[in-house]
């Protein structure tokens, strides 16, 4: 047993922090794409669009039913063998794709639940003034449903930030990948992984604060 090498840890902080932007960018891109896809899936599920509904169910079932790591390997190592035009796919893109598909499956279910929870009479009111179903969804239902679902969606976002660490298995040097490299050079594994753990922890805590603040604001929304 040796004493913690505090100097090494402090020196590591700025090095690792320089990889934080990539981690956050992957999470943000994944979240944005996942939100769009999840809304689409949720609307398909709620309106029971024939054919598409069966596809949505299958999609959701598959991406919730298999580990994210397996999905990432499937996209990055497996898919290019079948779809040769994907050979050029890089690790960052594959990660964002994997996060998008995986998390959209979960988020679709929360958004669907929120949509179903919206008073049916608003739907009838929108139809009665001549709105199409698409207008009704875009203008009335989805804005309310995403608000209702926001706390849950924030949880998925936090989960997604942590899940970006899997990108290092695709050879991406993000926060986790950089730590791995630093640790392999210094052999100070405990120090290195402790530092990266604390960095993730602080980021997630900060987001939890944002989440609380957002929830309070959302609770007051539409009230004045």
């Amino acid at each position, binding site marked *: 047993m040796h004493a913690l090498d505090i100097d090494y840890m402090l020196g590591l902080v700025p090095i690792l922090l320089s990889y934080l932007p990539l981690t956050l960018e992957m999470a943000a891109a994944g979240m944005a794409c996942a939100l769009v896809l999840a809304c689409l899936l949720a609307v398909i599920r709620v309106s029971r669009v024939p054919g598409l509904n069966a596809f949505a169910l299958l999609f959701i079932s598959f991406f919730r039913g298999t580990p994210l790591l397996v999905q990432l390997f499937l996209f990055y190592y497996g898919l290019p063998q079948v779809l040769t035009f994907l050979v050029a796919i890089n690790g960052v893109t594959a990660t964002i794709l994997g996060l998008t598909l995986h998390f959209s499956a979960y988020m679709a279910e929360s958004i669907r639940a929120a949509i179903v929870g919206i*008073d049916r*009479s*608003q739907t*009838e*009111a*929108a*139809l*009665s*003034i*001549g*709105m*199409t179903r698409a*207008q009704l969804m875009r*203008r*009335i239902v989805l*804005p*309310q449903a995403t*608000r209702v679902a926001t706390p849950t969606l924030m949880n998925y976002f936090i989960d997604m930030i942590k899940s970006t660490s899997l990108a290092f298995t695709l050879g991406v040097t993000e926060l986790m990948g950089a730590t791995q490299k630093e640790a392999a050079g210094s052999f100070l594994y405990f120090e290195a992984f402790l530092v990266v753990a604390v960095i993730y922890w602080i980021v997630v805590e900060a987001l939890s604060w944002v989440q609380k603040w957002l929830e309070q604001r959302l609770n007051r929304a*539409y*009230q*004045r």
Partner: protein
Amino acid sequence: MIELKGIRKQFGSHIVFDDVDLQLERGEIIVIVGPSGTGKSTLLRCINFLETPDAGQLTVGDLSLDATTATRDQILALRRRTAFVFQNYALFANKTALQNIAEGMIVVDGIAKREAYARAREILGRIGLADKADAYPAALSGGQQQRVGIGRAMAANAEVILFDEPTSSLDPQWVEEVLGLMKQLAAEHQTMIVVTHEMQFAREVADRVVFMDQGGIIEQAPPSELFSHPKDERTQQFLRKILAANKS
């Protein structure tokens, strides 16, 4: 002109009404009364296809359609020519009073935002809520919400406004302000069909009162005639009951 011909609606094997005919001239005001569960709401909802009639023809203004062959476009066209006021107001919870009124003009009629908001403000003035433009429904009283609901219907510039028990969900203290607004619309010769239990309103405002019971329309006549000389026994019985209930 509004015309319903041979309208039938059934839920499963339960036929709510069959072969219903009803005509309104422009500017006419019809009040529909009758026991609950007899299909008054269903009939109103058939007029704008919130329920799809199982048979019959509908004419609203320049649009005629057959219930069994109506296309999506015809239904949208029909809904643009009608407006609906709901018992539970059914305001858009994510829109302010002003936006609730302007929404249809912007999204359905394609009117420019500035223009739509200007017209919505003018309507807010007419319904006495000019100071509530930026209030969300949750911050309004029941009476105010229903006035916005009526304002939203006014904004649709419809051939006919359909009212489904507009005061039945209201606390008693708000009923008069909503009836007052409806009388104001009546005075402006807005064509309307009103389902209500407010007999006094029917007496004062209706050109014609329609009595509905199981199976459809039993009889219709100007209020003075229907209330004093109901022909059908079911009408007599219904009126006795409701007048007794109103006295107590």
